[in-house]
């Protein structure tokens, strides 16, 4: 009996290991092509053509960029704290990659008669986990800015930290409203509910909007990219960084963008649910259905990533006081209002629509 348990565990370990490697490499590749897409979108919006020299349509451009970053000289400033200086980009990268563990990427695959769920860890506090890891991302900025021993970097790090913390509050409040509807923190459960019924965006349009704005702020994307405001802080928290350490910071930003797009798609747009299509009725499609679901999730994610870029190349940066005003005086009251209204509705519904 003991050996049988061990055998099952081994398969589970292999399955999860393969999943982890697959998801990590997929998110890295997507982050790579996000840099390409960002440059293309920027170019198209500015009536240019964008990178088109490396390979057909320039699709090898991210590889060339990566190679360039690897070949560059690595400089660690004399006055910096060496350990923290190296830890900063590592932390940023790690926090960005870890979030993908609880996201359901599709239904259940059938691999040689063995059901494989396309989710690394289906923990029952999925959203809390995402939240915790995302807020850890600010340590990358803080440590990097502090360890650089440069006043601009430190200023940027302070700004980044206060911005991320301020915008986490309305994000959490908008999520509370959502969780009151779903009644579960489990990501797979939230998706399953949306597959049977309507997508959560129908019930929570305001909540989604607040979540979207906060996601922009959490990812340090324009219009909230104050930590890296070139024109006032020279480059922000990664000013002293060079070579691939800088690359890690930039990469972490793109991975964050990808992950927050996935979270938005999962929480509000039905995750891997195929729209106008009854997934349950086509269970006989087997693995093809799972592939279709994964592709649909990817399309939703691509749309959100495009939205991130579209906004970035449209809107100028907020001033710092405007940012704080919007966060504390605009979004928090709004999300509180959303929460109270949702709570009232939930109560009303559980009361059988009677007062």
């Amino acid at each position: 009996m003991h050996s049988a348990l061990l055998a099952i565990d081994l398969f589970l370990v292999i399955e999860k290991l393969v999943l982890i490697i697959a998801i990590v490499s997929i998110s890295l590749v997507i982050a790579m092509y996000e840099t390409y897409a960002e440059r293309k979108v920027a170019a198209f919006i500015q009536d240019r053509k964008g990178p088109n020299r490396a390979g057909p349509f320039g699709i090898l451009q991210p590889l060339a960029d990566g190679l360039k970053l690897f070949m560059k000289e690595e400089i660690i400033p004399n006055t910096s704290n060496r350990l923290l200086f190296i830890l900063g980009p590592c932390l940023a990268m790690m926090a960005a990659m870890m979030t993908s563990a609880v996201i359901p990427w599709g239904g259940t695959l059938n691999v040689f008669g063995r059901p494989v769920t396309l989710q690394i860890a289906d923990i029952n506090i999925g959203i809390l986990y995402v939240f915790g890891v995302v807020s850890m991302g600010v340590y990358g900025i803080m440590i990097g800015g502090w360890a650089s021993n440069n006043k601009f970097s430190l200023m940027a790090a302070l700004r980044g930290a206060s911005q991320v913390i301020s915008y986490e509050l309305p994000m959490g409040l908008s999520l509370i409203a959502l969780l009151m509807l779903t009644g579960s923190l489990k990501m797979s459960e939230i998706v399953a509910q949306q597959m049977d019924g309507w997508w959560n965006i129908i019930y929570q349009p305001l909540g989604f909007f607040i979540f979207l704005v906060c996601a922009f702020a959490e990812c340090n994307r324009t219009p909230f990219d104050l930590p890296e405001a070139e024109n006032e802080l020279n480059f922000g928290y990664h000013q002293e960084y060079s070579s691939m350490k800088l690359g890690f910071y930039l990469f972490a930003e793109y991975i964050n963008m990808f992950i927050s797009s996935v979270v938005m798609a999962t929480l509000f747009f039905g995750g891997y649910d195929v729209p106008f299509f009854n997934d349950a009725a086509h269970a006989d499609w087997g693995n093809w259905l799972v592939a279709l679901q994964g592709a649909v999730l990817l399309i939703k994610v691509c749309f959100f990533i495009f939205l991130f870029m579209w906004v970035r190349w449209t809107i100028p940066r907020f001033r710092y006081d405007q940012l704080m005003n919007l966060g504390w005086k605009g979004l928090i009251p709004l999300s509180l209002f959303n929460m109270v209204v949702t709570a009232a509705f939930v109560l009303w519904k559980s009361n059988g629509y009677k007062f």
Partner: protein
Amino acid sequence: MQALTNRAKAVDRKPLSLVEKLYVVNIAKGMMITLGHFFKKKATISYPEEKRPFSPVFRGLHILNRDEEGRERCTACGLCALACPAEAITMEAAERLPGEENLYREEKYAAKYEINMLRCIFCGLCEEACPKDAVYLSETFAPSNYQRKGFIYGKQDLLIPSPKENPGEYQKAIGNRKAN
């Protein structure tokens, strides 16, 4: 105070209206504008593959012309060097020897003819000064170079191909200008 021009506009310091304070409406408007640009025709010209046509009066690199029999027209009179405001042109004259009549049109010719393209301002005064129609400015520009000496163009760089020996190249160098 009297405004300096009639185009002066007072800075509008009105507080934002409610719609403006919400940001959302104006952001949506802006995003529609950028989306419109997304699908617009791009202004870029992919340079080495696609070249912008030059105007026929464009003043580019110099060319030393030949006559219809392939003889050099330049007589090394030095008027172009005299006319040049940037002092980019230097030349040395030599006398035509018997038997060289098929090379040089007149008894005197330029043994050395150099233009420093770093000094040249491409004003075209040499072209205007030339009594023999020997020098004119073409529709190309000086390519980049790693060294200064690469920008001093000698006679072999400037001379047009011979219309007799290499008529194709000659026509290409002439372009849509009137020959001779």
